[in-house]
C-alpha cells in the first residue's frame, strides 16, 4: 500500500517542475526517486517499517491523541 502521506505535485514554494513528482506531505519536500520506492512500497520496501519520517508522524499523531 502506498504511503498515505505521499502525493504527486508539480510545485511547492521552492520548486516548479514540468511533471508531477513524488512529494512528502510530512516534510513538505519533494522526495528523491530512491525514497519514492519506499513511499510506494516497491522492491520489498514497506513505508511503515522503513520510513523514519512516516514513523515519526504516526508517533506524533498518537501523542496528540493522548
Amino acid at each position, binding site marked *: 500500500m502506498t504511503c498515505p502521506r505521499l502525493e*504527486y505535485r508539480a510545485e511547492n514554494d521552492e520548486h516548479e517542475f514540468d*511533471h508531477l513528482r513524488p512529494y512528502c506531505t510530512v516534510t513538505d*519536500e*519533494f522526495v528523491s*526517486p530512491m525514497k519514492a520506492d*519506499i513511499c510506494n512500497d516497491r*522492491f520489498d520496501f*514497506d513505508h511503515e517499517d522503513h520510513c523514519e519520517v512516516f514513523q515519526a508522524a504516526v508517533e506524533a499523531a498518537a501523542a496528540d491523541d493522548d
Partner: protein
Amino acid sequence: MAYQGYADYFEAPVIISVAPTGGMHGKEANPNLPEQPEEIAEDVRNCEKAGASIVHVHARDEDGEPTKDPAKFQELRDIIEERCDDILVNFTTGGGNDREGRIRPVIETRPTPDLATVDLGPLNTRGDVVAMNTRVQNEEYVRRMNEHDVKPELEVFGPGHLTEVHHLADEGMLEEPFWTTLILGMQTGTIPRPRNLINLVDNLPEGAEWQCMAIGRHQLPLTTMAMTLGGHVRVGMEDNVYYRRGELVESNAQLVERAADIAERLERPIASTDETREILNL
C-alpha cells in the same frame, strides 16, 4: 592490466565515463540533473565533446522515477546515437531485486548497448531490505551479456565483491580486459578513503582494467587519485550533484570538463572512443 607504475601514469590514455542521471536522486536534488531523453542526449553530447567516451544510462519515467521499461531505454539508445558522434553506451542493470526485469533493457534494445553493469554483491538498503545480487544472478547476467555481445562492467561496491571478479575470471566467463568499476562511498560499500582505493587496485586480478567511481564530495579527489594510479574515471550527476561545496553542478559536461582538465594537467592523454574500444577490446 594490474598497476604497472609510472608507465601507466604517463602513457595510458584515461577513459572518462559519464553517468548523467542515475536512479537515486533527481531534480529535487539538482534541477540541472537530466532525466528525460531529450535533455539527457543534449547533456551527453556536450560530455562527449568534453572528452567522455562512455555514457552510463539510467531511464526515468515522466515522474522522474526510475524505470526498467525496455522501450524507454530504446528511446534513450536512439536519441543518444542520433545526437552524439560515437559515444559508447552502457546500460545499468542496477536497482531492486527483479532479476529478469533488470536485464531486459540490455538484451531487448537494438542495437544492444556496448556495455552493461553487473552489481557484484549484496548491499544493505533500509531495514531488512537488501539488494541481493547473488552469485547465480551475476553468472546469469554475464552469460546473457556475452550471448548478446555486450561487455560486462563489473561493479565492485565493496571489497568482498572483488572475490566475484576473481570467480568470474577463474570460471572463464569474462574476456580480457575485465572491465571493473571500483566504487567508494556508496551505502554499505567501501569507505571512501585513499588507502582503500589502493587496496582495491592491489587486489584486482591480472587482466583487469579499472575505473574509479566515488560518491559526492569524494568524486573529485578519488577520481584524480585514480588518474595518478593509471586507472580510468567515472564522473557525473548520478554520483555527485555538487561542483564544489554549496555550488550545484550546472551540467554533466561541467564535471567531464574538469576531469579532462585534470588529466591534461597530469599529462595523461584522454581516450578517444576508438582508443576506449581498443583498451576494452570492444
